[in-house]
């Protein structure tokens, strides 16, 4: 029996998704598949189209490979436009001939709507849909200075971002009174506009373009109905989409009044052998201009063709979450509150630039819709409430209030029903994820590979991770919290063992509570714990072998085996005399000199044997070690404060010096940074530190658990208007609680996020003393501050400790031949022979 023929017209995202679904089904073996694509390229990811301007190529964006098509026996005819459908003959016509079909799938997508404006044929007017459009825009932009996007919707703002990335001054011209009129309300639109204008994109609302003519100062002049005008070098139309239904219309299939190929719940058109999916299809008088509903139609149709009679498309969620020009925007369900009796709850923080609106049902029990601008962190929880009809808490406003103002924590994965949709692109539910885990997936990548969850638009990434972690933990696949093969304990448990049993050496600890000799994981961790508990010198004989190399030699090893030296400069305040000493020492030892981000001076290129000599000189000039090598307090950065600054309200330098001297030398699970700003202008960038202090008229505001680095996090406001004493007391408590309970190499931010109850819990412990340990924490911190010693001072005074700093113990004068130098910008830098 010869095979039947399936023809697909259109090779876009939805067409491709349909093929993926169909070839995986048993029915596929009964069909020869023929695909026509109008564009020259294979299907690509249009959702991420603008990445084409920031370096992505077609192959980065492509949905499948040429091999994938041939492996599945799919004949792909690109750049071959279908010119007619002949439903009576069951054939399609192209310039190259006629092709017969048994089943036909229309996945022709949409085309950009260009308003009928006089002059729109100008050669520098474009649309934003295909890679070819983008090539043309890029070409035009090369000699242009500015560009206008007509249309302030989702795609229009995406296009504006693309123009900006091409180096143009970007403008957005919108007919409606606000941006994203479909998804946002007046306040949300206003905030979005404000944020986008701050990024340098000019927004013009309530502008109707009447004509496009040659410009005087630029290529084009746009005239508006209010007699104003705007000159620009190019225009991109992004005023919405229209379904591509030309073929269907010409062949007599039913189409909607305003376009769109009419389909039923089975995605079948008025001809039983012709089907339509994606943006070209009109279902229930609706066109779906997003990728997720198109994928749902594709899945439905694949099931139908596979003989599943129950498969049906029943509409789709149009909720959207995206970053437009770096600004979070989210819109869920009935965002405008059009459901009868709907009530609104709004939160609008103009200072932080956050706007959130919830639309709840008349009885206050169900979430109907929501709008978010500026911060999408509440999106996942709200979407789950809306999609799954989860009953809202008694005070639903807590869902959108900031956590420190009584906001509820995000909806945990446990609260979701099995049917909750996690990934709407690929229609993956919580139940599917749990099945995949039960079937043997033991980590996030394997769950993604198995279920395809989070491989579409990626909007569900964080929710998926939470869910997978939570489910794995429930099944006892819990991430092994053992420190390493030598200790079956977490860092926190080891801390307790050391503290409670008064253990003072690694050897005692491992012989009583571990096995083997230790390794580079447990030794430094235990070294840090012992230092925190007993504060003995880190180069005491028992402790030397525990330290990471930087701690062992109290300097930072660089790539050629030499070291850098960072003396402490508390608060960044330094006398000219001390600065001169640094210069003299650097000059004498030919040290490369650089100012650090923490308001100190870093001296590079000292050999092991030079370290003690250099430190003798620095100590004689009054310097102390800066602990740049340690998992301990680094610096307390400060602005100049009210002593000099006309805006300052407190002495920020003075407080920074007090804090730096109090916490210096304290060993912690990871490095700790602090900063003090003298007023709300925040010149010391305190909110990016583990402990940030900002002066107020009445005292100090304390922020905790921020950091910079790979995953930056703003610190959270912890307490306000503290006196000097209260500030130090509070930091004492938080820092000691961190040091005692955090994991190895865990910064304060991750530690706090992992505390059950998070910031609120930390506040209870520290501000309300809910565990009754505050006195103990303060006492512990006091004892550490009282036993502080400059590690370098002790080391240079002790001949036994100095012995460690010999490059080669048998030949003191021998230089390391690997350390070769050259000069760059007037200073020495290393040259390393190739390995």
């Amino acid at each position, binding site marked *: 029996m010869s095979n039947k023929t399936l023809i697909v017209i259109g090779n876009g995202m939805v067409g491709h998704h349909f093929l993926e679904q169909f070839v995986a089904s048993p029915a596929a073996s009964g069909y020869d598949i023929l695909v026509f694509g109008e564009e020259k390229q294979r299907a690509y990811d249009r959702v991420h189209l603008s990445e084409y301007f920031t370096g992505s190529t077609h192959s980065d964006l492509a949905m499948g490979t040429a091999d994938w098509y041939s492996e599945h026996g799919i004949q792909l005819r690109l750049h071959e436009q279908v010119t007619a459908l002949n439903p009576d003959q069951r054939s399609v016509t192209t310039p190259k001939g006629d092709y017969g079909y048994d089943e036909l799938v229309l996945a022709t997508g949409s085309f950009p709507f260009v308003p009928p404006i006089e002059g729109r044929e100008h050669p520098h007017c474009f649309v934003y849909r295909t890679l070819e459009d983008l090539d043309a825009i890029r070409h035009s932009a090369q000699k242009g200075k500015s560009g206008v996007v007509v249309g302030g919707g989702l795609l229009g703002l995406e296009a504006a971002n693309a123009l900006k990335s091409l180096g143009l001054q970007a403008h957005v011209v919108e007919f409606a009174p606000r941006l994203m009129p479909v998804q946002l309300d007046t306040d949300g639109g206003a905030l979005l506009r404000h944020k986008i204008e701050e990024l340098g994109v000019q927004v013009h609302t309530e502008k109707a373009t009447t004509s496009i003519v040659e410009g005087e100062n630029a290529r084009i002049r746009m005239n508006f109905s209010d007699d104003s005008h705007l000159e620009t070098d190019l225009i991109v139309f992004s005023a919405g989409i229209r379904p591509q239904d030309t073929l269907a219309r010409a062949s007599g299939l039913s189409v909607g009044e305003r376009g769109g190929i009419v389909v039923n719940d089975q995605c079948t058109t008025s001809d039983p052998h012709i089907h339509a999916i994606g943006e070209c299809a009109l279902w229930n008088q609706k066109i779906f201009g997003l990728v997720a509903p198109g994928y749902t139609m594709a899945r439905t149709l694949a099931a139908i063709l596979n003989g599943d009679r129950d498969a049906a498309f029943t509409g789709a969620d149009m909720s959207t979450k995206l970053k437009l020009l770096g600004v979070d925007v989210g819109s869920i369900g009935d965002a405008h509150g059009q459901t009868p009796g709907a009530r609104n709850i709004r939160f609008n923080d103009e200072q932080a630039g956050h706007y959130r609106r919830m639309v709840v049902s008349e009885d206050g029990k169900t979430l109907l819709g929501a709008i978010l601008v500026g911060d999408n962190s509440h999106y996942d929880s709200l979407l789950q409430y809306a999609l799954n009809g989860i009953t809202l808490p008694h005070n639903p406003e807590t869902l959108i209030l900031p956590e420190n103002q009584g906001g509820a924590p995000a909806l945990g994965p446990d609260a979701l029903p099995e049917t909750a949709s996690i990934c709407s692109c690929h229609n993956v539910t919580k139940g599917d994820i749990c099945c995949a885990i039960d079937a043997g997936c033991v980590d996030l990548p394997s769950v993604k590979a198995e279920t395809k969850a989070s491989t579409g638009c990626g909007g569900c990434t964080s929710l998926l991770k939470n869910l997978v972690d939570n489910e794995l933990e429930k099944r006892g696949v819990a991430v092994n919290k053992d420190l390493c*093969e*030598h200790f079956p304990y977490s860092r926190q448990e080891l801390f307790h063992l050391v503290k409670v049993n008064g253990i003072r050496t690694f050897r005692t600890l491992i012989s009583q509570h571990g096995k*083997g*000799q*230790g*390794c*580079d994981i*447990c*030794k*430094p961790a235990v070294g840090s714990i012992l230092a925190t508990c007993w504060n003995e010198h880190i180069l005491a*004989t028992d402790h*030397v*072998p*525990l*330290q*990471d*190399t*930087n701690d*062992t*030699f109290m300097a930072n*090893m660089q*790539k*050629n*085996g030499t070291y850098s030296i960072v003396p402490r400069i508390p608060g960044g305040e330094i006398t000219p005399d001390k600065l001169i000493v640094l210069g003299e020492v650097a000059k004498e030892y030919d040290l490369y000199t650089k100012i650090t981000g923490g308001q100190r001076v870093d001296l590079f290129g000292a050999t092991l044997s030079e370290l003690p000599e250099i430190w003798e000189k620095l100590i004689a000039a009054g310097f102390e070690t800066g602990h740049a090598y340690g998992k301990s307090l680094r610096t307390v950065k400060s602005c100049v404060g009210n002593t000099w600054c006309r805006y300052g309200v407190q002495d920020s330098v003075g407080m920074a010096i007090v804090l730096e001297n109090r916490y210096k030398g304290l060993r912690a699970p990871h490095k700790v940074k602090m900063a003090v700003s003298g007023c709300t202008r925040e010149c010391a960038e305190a909110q990016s530190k583990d402990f940030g202090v900002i002066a107020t008229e009445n005292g100090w505001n304390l922020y905790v658990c921020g950091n910079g680095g790979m995953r930056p996090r703003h610190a959270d406001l912890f307490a306000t208007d503290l006196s000097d004493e209260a500030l130090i007391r509070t930091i004492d408590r938080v820092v000691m609680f961190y040091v005692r309970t955090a994991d190895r190499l865990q910064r304060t931010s991750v530690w706090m996020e992992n505390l059950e109850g998070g910031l609120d819990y930390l506040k209870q412990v520290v501000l309300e003393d809910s565990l009754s340990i505050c006195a103990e924490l303060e006492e512990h911190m006091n004892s550490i501050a009282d036993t502080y010693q400059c590690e370098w001072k002790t080391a240079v005074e002790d001949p036994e400790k100095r*012995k*460690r700093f*010999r*490059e*080669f*113990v*048998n*030949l003191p004068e*021998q230089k*390391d031949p*690997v350390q070769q130098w050259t000069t760059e910008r007037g200073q020495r830098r290393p040259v*390393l*022979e*190739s*390995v």
Partner: protein
Amino acid sequence: MKTRTFWNTICTVDDLVPESGIAVWTEEGPVAVFYLPHRLPALVAISHKDPFSGANVLARGITGDLGGEPIVASPLYKQHFNLKTGVCLEDESVRVKTYSVLLDGNRILLETRETQQEAVAA
């Protein structure tokens, strides 16, 4: 041409640091000597040169054991080397040279090879 080996005195017991390494200079280049008092043998030696960075730093790594085998972790990029065989645990195709080392009274002796051109008869 033939290769002879020599036992050289490189340092004394007082130079060693328990559970840690020191570096010595030899005719063959820098060598790292580790003193592991809780193992047998208590003295092991490998090349001081970290093959991944090219820097002479292995003596400054943290020692310990993994799966019962004595190891040192490179202080630069943290690869582990087996102190008995010199093989890198992360990449078994990489191996650092190992040396024999002995305790003789108070002195530490290290075996090095010296290649000498034999005199050619006139």
